[in-house]
């Protein structure tokens, strides 16, 4: 089969590399968050590491897009792959955005929401694990990916739930409004990372549906 699908196989390899790089970005983001919460002075360099990993993911995404525009895959399927990589890329983008907000604005994290943020990050990592599982199945055998949209969505709901409680706690607190608003932005930005994973799950199913009769 590679004889007839050289370009397509190359694109698939690049998509795998891109997903791995996005996973690496998330991993670096996780280290950054813990460093920030622990007030580790190295957190700006960890934020920079997130930025670098995201940039490397962008380079791979650009290579994939070039290969697709050079004629890999039928035009009818090409758009699906472009949409998929853009959605996967947005996971890394959100990690970068969140770390940027935190590095630039240095918000003080009050103790009463510290644990919630750790829980949100952990739930985001769990959501990514399910997304990764779905991605691996999608790359091995498209038709078996059905059901992953729901699986990812159920994990993402947990992040949403923690986000809601965290925001609720935040606005019930005695903090200054300006601090509340800044923290709200950080929390919502953190919540959006798993939202992008949910979008990826939906795209897996959409592609699988389009390949059915």
């Amino acid at each position: 089969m590679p004889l007839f699908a050289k370009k397509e196989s190359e694109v698939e390899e690049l998509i795998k590399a891109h997903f791995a790089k996005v996973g690496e970005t998330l991993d670096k983001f996780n280290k950054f968050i813990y460093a920030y919460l622990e007030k580790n002075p190295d957190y700006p360099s960890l934020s920079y590491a997130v930025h670098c990993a995201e940039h490397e993911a962008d380079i791979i995404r650009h290579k994939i897009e070039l290969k697709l525009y050079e004629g890999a895959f039928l035009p009818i399927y090409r758009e699906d792959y472009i949409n998929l990589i853009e959605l996967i890329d947005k996971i890394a983008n959100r990690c970068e955005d969140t770390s940027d907000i935190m590095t630039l604005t240095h918000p003080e994290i009050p103790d009463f929401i510290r644990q919630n943020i750790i829980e949100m990050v952990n739930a985001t990592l769990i959501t990514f694990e399910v997304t990764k599982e779905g991605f691996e199945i999608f790359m091995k055998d498209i038709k078996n990916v059905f059901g992953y949209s729901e699986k990812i969505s159920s994990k993402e709901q947990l992040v949403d739930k923690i986000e809601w409680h965290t925001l609720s706690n935040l606005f019930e607190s005695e903090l200054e409004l300006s601090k509340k608003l800044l923290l709200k932005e950080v929390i919502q930005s953190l919540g959006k990372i798993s939202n992008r994973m949910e979008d990826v799950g939906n795209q897996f199913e959409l592609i699988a549906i389009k390949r059915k009769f």
Partner: protein
Amino acid sequence: MLKFFGGIFFGWSLGANDAANVFGTAVATRVVRFWTAAILASIFVLLGALLEGSKCMKIMGEIAQINLNQTIIVTFSAAVTMTILTILGIPASSSQAIMGAILGGTIRTQTPNWAKFGNVILCWVGTPIGAAIIAFILYHLLDFIFKKTTGITGAKFNTIIRLGILITGCMGAYSLGANNVANVTGIYVGAKLLSPFMASFIGGLSIVVGIVTYSYKVMETVGLKITLLGPLAALVAVGSEAITVYIYTHIGIPVSTSQAIVGAVTGIGLVRGIRAVNIKLLNQIFIGWLSTPVSAGIIAFLLSLFIH
């Protein structure tokens, strides 16, 4: 050469219109460029015409005994009918045009073989129905195979579709040549003006000229309509059409590739549920059944009256 003008003109119009039914999907999905499709279609049409084209020619001489003047009237009437109906946007079938023209052009001087003509009509009705049944079976078969096969990655799936569309396009072109060349020059064999081989060669070449010179637009539009079903379903539609038309080649009756593909699309619609069946397309078949032979018959009858 003038006596073959009607047939060649008819072949040209057939190539320009009907190549879309076999290679339209490949062009619309960009599996191949137009010129690759035109070259492949030309090769396979010519192969079909030369290897099996004579099978459907016998019936032309069996419907009525045709002389030289009548061949000119019949082929010219059929070609004019095809052209006018195509311009008016009414789906026209070359098989039905030539049969209608044979009846109209000869009925003044002889009684046609109604029994043979009845068989032909039965095959016309059977074409979309047969194609629908084949599409229904093929659809379920492919669906079953896909469900049972493991490890179909995006790249593999893409290759399967590419090859499938290309192979069914070549099959369809072969069937088109084998079955429909009789419409174009079969009448000259009946009138003992050409040998079956020469008739297949001239007819095949005139279809090829039609494909190369004028089929691009029809390929784009028809191909796009079929492809709206999705590439897998489009593949089934073209494959079913090719099989159906090929079966009728062995029966020895020229049939319509356009009606075969509409039948196949209807068969796929039935798999998805009755709501997915396009009633408008079915109406077009019924209109085609009536309008094409009747128009060709009237033109041929009037021309024969005028000449005599």
